[in-house]
C-alpha cells in the first residue's frame, strides 16, 4: 500500500492515492469543497480561492486544497469559521460581478457558481452593498455552435487551459490585466475570427454559463455509440430527445479518444435529422424520381439483378456503413450474384 495515503478530512478517515490533491481526495470521498477553477483534466492554478482548507500541524495553516498534495496522517478541516468568512466574501464578490439572471441561463441548475453559493451562503446585507459591474458587455455569438457571454464569465481560466493543455491550440488566452482581464483571442476579436477549431472542449468544461452550446436542448437520455466521420473512431454518447439527436458528449471510457471530440464529432451529428434525408425509396420514371414503397422498389431491383448475375454485376460497398452491413453486402455479391466484383473507396 505504498502508493496509498491515509488522512483525516473533517474527522473522516480518507484513503487517497499518493500524489492526489486534498480536493481530489475529498471529492472522491464525497466531501464537497467549494471550487470553481479546478477541473480534473487540467493543472491546478488556485485562482478562485474557494477551495481553501485548514491543515493542522505545528503551525496550522490555510491552503488551497486543489494544489496541496495529501500526506500521510494529514488532518484537514474544510469548514472553519475563518475559511467560511473568506469564502463567503469571495462568493459575494463573484455574484456581484456576475449576470444573475439565472433562469435565462443555459447552465441553470448545472452551474458551479450556483452550487458554491448554495453551499456557502451569502450575507445579503453585505451583498447588497456591493456594486454590480457597471456596463454589460456584448455577448459574442459569432461562432455557429456556441456563444460566449462575458457577463457570466468568472475568469476561472478553464477554457484557456483546456485549449492549451488538452488541444495545444491555445486559440484564447487571458488578455489585459486586473479588472479588465478577459478571455480573448488574438486582437480581442470575435470567437469566429480566433484560431478556434470549434471542438467544444471548453464549452463542456465551462463551470458557469459563459460558454454555452447554441440551441441547446437537454437530452432525455444518452446512447453510447461511435462517431461516423473519420477513422479515429471516437467513442461518443448521443443525447436523445424524442426522435432526435440533440447533443453529443465524448465517451470517457473509449480508449480511442478518452472523451475528447473534434468539431465534426461534437456538432456534425446534425445531418442525422436533416430535412434533406431520404425517407422513401425512389424509382426513376421518365427521368424523374417517384416515391415508391419498399416492396415495389426491392422487387424492381431484384428483378434486374436476377438477370445480371455473374460478371455483369458489381457492388460498391461503403466505408461509412457498419462492418455487419459490409459483411452482408460482400456475401450477397459473392454468394448470391456469383462474382467478386466488389470494392469500396478504401483508397480514397
Amino acid at each position, binding site marked *: 500500500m505504498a502508493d496509498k495515503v491515509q488522512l483525516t478530512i473533517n474527522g473522516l478517515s480518507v484513503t487517497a492515492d499518493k500524489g492526489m490533491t486534498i480536493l481530489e481526495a475529498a471529492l472522491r470521498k464525497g466531501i464537497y469543497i467549494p471550487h470553481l477553477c479546478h477541473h480534473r483534466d487540467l493543472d491546478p492554478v488556485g485562482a478562485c480561492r474557494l477551495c481553501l482548507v485548514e491543515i493542522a500541524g505545528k503551525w496550522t495553516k490555510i491552503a488551497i486544497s486543489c494544489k496541496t498534495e495529501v500526506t500521510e496522517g494529514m488532518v484537514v478541516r474544510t469548514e472553519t469559521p475563518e475559511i467560511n468568512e473568506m469564502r463567503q466574501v469571495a462568493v459575494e464578490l463573484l455574484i456581484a460581478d456576475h449576470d444573475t439572471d439565472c433562469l435565462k441561463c443555459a447552465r441553470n441548475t448545472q452551474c458551479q457558481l450556483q452550487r458554491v453559493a448554495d453551499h456557502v451562503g451569502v450575507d445579503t446585507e453585505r451583498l447588497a452593498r456591493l456594486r454590480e459591474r457597471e456596463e454589460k458587455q456584448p455577448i459574442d455569438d459569432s461562432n*455557429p455552435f456556441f456563444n460566449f457571454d462575458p457577463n457570466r464569465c468568472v475568469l476561472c481560466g478553464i477554457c484557456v487551459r483546456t485549449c492549451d493543455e488538452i*488541444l*495545444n491550440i491555445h486559440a484564447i488566452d487571458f488578455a489585459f490585466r486586473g479588472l479588465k482581464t478577459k478571455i480573448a483571442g488574438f486582437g480581442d476579436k470575435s470567437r*469566429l475570427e480566433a484560431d478556434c*477549431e*470549434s471542438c467544444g472542449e471548453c464549452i463542456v468544461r465551462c463551470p458557469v454559463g459563459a460558454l454555452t452550446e447554441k440551441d441547446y436542448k437537454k437530452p432525455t437520455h444518452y446512447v453510447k*455509440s*461511435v462517431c*461516423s466521420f*473519420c*477513422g479515429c*473512431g471516437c467513442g461518443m454518447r448521443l443525447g436523445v430527445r424524442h426522435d432526435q439527436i440533440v447533443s453529443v458528449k465524448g465517451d470517457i471510457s473509449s*480508449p*480511442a479518444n478518452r472523451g*475528447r471530440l*473534434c468539431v465534426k464529432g461534437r*456538432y*456534425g451529428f*446534425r*445531418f*442525422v435529422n*436533416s430535412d434533406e434525408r*431520404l*425517407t422513401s*425509396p*425512389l*424509382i426513376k420514371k421518365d427521368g424523374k424520381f417517384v416515391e415508391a414503397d*419498399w416492396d415495389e422498389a426491392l422487387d424492381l*431491383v*431484384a428483378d*434486374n*439483378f*436476377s438477370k*445480371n448475375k*455473374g460478371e455483369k454485376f*458489381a457492388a*460498391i*460497398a*461503403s*466505408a*461509412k456503413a*457498419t*462492418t455487419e*452491413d*459490409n*459483411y452482408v*453486402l*460482400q*456475401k*450477397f*455479391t*459473392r454468394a*448470391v450474384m456469383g462474382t*467478386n466484383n466488389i*470494392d*469500396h*473507396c*478504401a*483508397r*480514397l
Partner: protein
Amino acid sequence: MAGLATSLGSGAMTNAIDELGGAASILAIGTNTTATHPIIALKVKDAVKSGAKLIVANPKEIDLCQFADVFLRHKPGTDVPLLMGMSKVILDEGLEDKDFIASRCEDFDAFKESLAAFDLDTVEKITGVPQDKIVEAAKIYAEQSPASIIYCMGITQHVHGTDNVLAISNLALLTGNLGKESAGVNPLRGQNNVQGACDMGSLPNVYPGYQAVTVPDNKAKFEKAWGVELSDQAGLTHTRIFDACHDGNIKSLYLVGENPVLSEADAGHATDCLKKTDFLVVQDIFLNETAELADVVLPATTFAEKDGTFTNTERRVQRVRKAIEPVGNSKPDWWITCELAKRLEAKGFDFEGPEAIMDEIASVTPSYSGISYARLEKGTLQWPCPADDHPGTPFLHGEKFGTDTGKGKFKPLEYRKPGEDIDSEYPLILTTDRSLYHYHSTMTRRVYGLNVLDKEELLNIHPQDASGLGVEDGQMVKVASRRGVVEVKAKVTDNCPEGTVSMTFHFSETPTNLLTCCELDPVSSTPGTKVCAVRVENL
C-alpha cells in the same frame, strides 16, 4: 494497404492510437493530421509535450509543423527519395538495428544495394529538402526509439503509392521499429469504418479476414460456410468497375453510401461511367450528386438509427448503437441487402439482426473469432482477437510478421517520377487536401454550422506564384487540368510551396476532382490525386 501487406503481412495500423503517447519520436508524413484525424493529432501533440521528437514531412506547411522539431518540406511525389535518403543516412551512420535485421527480416541486401542511388546530393536535388535536415530527421528517427510513423493519403494517393508505403516499411524495419509498443508503421485510415469494410472483404480479391479468393482452400471454406458455389476469379477494382460500366460490360451496379461524382479522381470520367450504366441502384441517406443519376434510390439509415460495429483505424472494434428510430421510411443497409437476397431466393440471409451477423463473421474470420456483442458490451476489442478469451492485440508483429515466411521483407526501390508531368501549358502541381470542418461532403455539407466555419473551396497558392499570375487574395480564378476546369477563390498563402497549389474536394459547387488524375498505382489501383498538373488563370 497493398504495400504493407507485402512487406509486413498486414495492411493495418501496427499500433494503438494511445501508444503514440509513448513514442520517443514520431514521423508524420503525408498526413495533415490535425485536419483529417484531429483526435490522433491530439495524441501526437501530447507525445511532443511529454518529450517526443516530431518530424513532419509534407509539401505544405501544416498546423502540426508548429510542434515539429524538424520540418521536411519535400516536393510533392518525392516521398521515395526522401525516405530512402533517410534510410541511407541511417545505414551510413551505422544506426541500423543489426540484430533486428538479422533475426526478423529478409531481402536486406537487395534493398541495401538499391540505396546506392539515393546519395544526399541526389536526394536534395529531387526533394528540395536541405541535406542537413534529412540527416537530422534520420538521426532522430533512428536514435529516438521507440519511433512511430504515421501516414495517410499523402503517401498512398500517388501513382506509385505502393512504393511510398514500402519505403516507409523499409525505414521501420531498418531501425527495428516494429513489433513493440509505440514503435510501428501506422496508416491512418480515412473513413470511420474503412478498416471494417476491408476486414469484411469488401474488396475484389479477398474474403473476410483477408483470405484470398484465388486460394482454393479459402474458396472451399466459404462455399461450405455459405452453402453455394463461388467464383475463383478476383473481381474488378473500384476504378475498373467504373470503366466496365462505361464499356457496357457491367450492366447492374449496386452502389452503397458513396458519392463518386464528387470524390472520385477525374470525376468527369466517373460521372460518364455512371451515366452509361444500364441499371444503377444507389443506397444512401441523402439524394446526393451520385444518387441523382440512379434508376432506383434506396433510403438507408444513419449510424444513429441502427446497431452494428465500426472498426477504427487502430483495428478497434466498437459497438454502434441505435439511438433513435429510422427517419421516415429508411432502413438499415444490412436489412435492405438481405431483403434483396431473399427476393433472389438466396439462403443464409435471414439474420435476426446485427448481432447474428457478427456471430457469422466470427465463425468465418479468424481475426474476429473471439469477438461477440456480449464481449463488446464490456469494452472494445482490437483484432486480431482469435479466441473468446483473447484480450485483443494492441500492436502487431510482436513475435513474427504476417508474411508467408514470417519475416519482414525489405523492398528495393527506385525513384520514379511523380504522376503527371508539368509543362508550359500546365505549369503548376495541384495537390488535394482536406478541411477539419468537412468529411467528404454528403454529411457535413448538411450541417449549417460547419458551413459557416468553412463555407467555400479555396485554392491555396504561394504569394510568388500569385504575383506572377497577377492573382490577388480572395479573387476568383480558373483552374484547368488536362481533364477539366473549375472556378475557385484564391487564397494567397505561403503554407503552400512555390509551384504547388492545393484544394480540398468538399464542395459540389467547386468539384475539384474534375481536375485530378486517375492514373493508378499499378499494384494497389489507387489513383494519384496528390499530383496533378494544372494551370491557374486570372478570371
